[in-house]
């Protein structure tokens, strides 16, 4: 799985962290997304896709 982020569009909602806490985090100062794991294990795919789906700024792209 490959994850790419359009960080400039991030609005700091943190929905991705709630959906996939092992893969995403937020910066302390402004809540902008931080990618914890660029190549997460396959069993995380469901969570990562859900994170991409609920992101309110369409920041996350997932390729299998």
């Amino acid at each position, binding site marked *: 799985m490959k994850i790419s982020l359009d960080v400039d569009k991030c609005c*700091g*909602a943190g*929905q991705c962290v709630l959906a996939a806490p092992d893969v995403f985090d*937020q910066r302390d100062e402004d809540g902008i997304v931080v990618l914890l794991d660029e190549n997460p294990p396959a069993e995380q795919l469901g969570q990562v896709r859900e994170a991409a789906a609920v992101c309110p700024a*369409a920041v996350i792209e997932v390729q299998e």
Partner: protein
Amino acid sequence: MNRPESVTVVGASAAGLGVVETLRREGYEGDLTLVGGEPHLPYDRPPLSKQLLSGAWDVGRLTLRQPEALQELDVDMRLGVPAVGLDTAKRAVLLGDGERVGYEALVVATGASARRLPGTEGVRGVHVLRNLEDAQELKAALARRPRLVIVGSGFVGAEAAAVARELGCEVTMVTDVAVPLGDALGAEIGGMLADVHREHGVRIEPGVMVEGVLADGARQVRGVQLADGRTIEADVVLVGIGAGANTGWLKGSSVPVGNGVECDATLYAGDGVWAAGDVASWVHPGTGRRTRIEHRTNAAEQGLAVGRNILAGPGEAKPFAPVPYVWSDQYDLKVQIYGSTRGADEVRIVEGGLGERRLVALYGQGGRVCGAAGINMVRVLRAHRRSVADAVPWEPEAALVGGER
């Protein structure tokens, strides 16, 4: 599991897109049709009153999915054609071009429209801010640095005020409430935000109704008339007084409509019809209250939930029980709210403070936590989301001690 052979989604914004993406992601192979009244590919609305209005982003940045990604969904897209009627007996959507689109399952995701001030039809210089064209027209108007009057003090009005000041416009905000944003955040925090707007040069006229706009012989707006007899001169007026659900096209169908499409807790409205996004009203299982939410994250989450529930079928569908979330960017402040803060009977700042303009506040109702709001404390606020989700008893002192810092 009896999956429908065809699903038609009316409304091609965040909620509608969420439904079709979820269906395909979860392996649905039936016919999918996506009807959108606007001619554009699905685009994002929160930046309209922020980055698009300010000029920081061009229109292309708003596109929610690239054309190739949409193509892969294998969806019959009917964009630029509004739905004008629904025949629930024959299960067909009537489109503005006279065509009929059948369905076995239908999703109503037609969103909401900005409320307008009576008597402003055809008056030049009076704007609303809801879709791409609205934002582009307002942006063009603000480029001339006009005297702008904003009617209403909700998030859209407050964000537009911030952008307009940064663009050098003279801005007056008129609102019928005592404290702008006070209904959403409480008088104290709303008052702090109002102070920030004043410091940036926004003139605020609180606690007064706008009776109407004043126009010259050429039907160009010249100002607003207040209920207390005063007038305020304006070259441009932005009306930001909320929105109403787009349900007119459902008239005469069996779909129950009140303030939005009235669904059960699973977002099902009967007769194969579901609803998602701003247009959907459902009974939140946590609060037991009928709820309709006009926020971006709710649209995505309801799209996801409806997609899954369609595949599960009405009998097996799961109740939709989110922690609502909304954010607003004004100047260098990020305002974020979890849960429901309107109508709270308790407000307590549990982290940071008004003076430093970084804080987290908890909101309580009936002895339980019902909401949490943060200003420039993103991660700290997220740690309090759990209290909102669990509606824990109102003990904010405990939160103050135990809250993650």
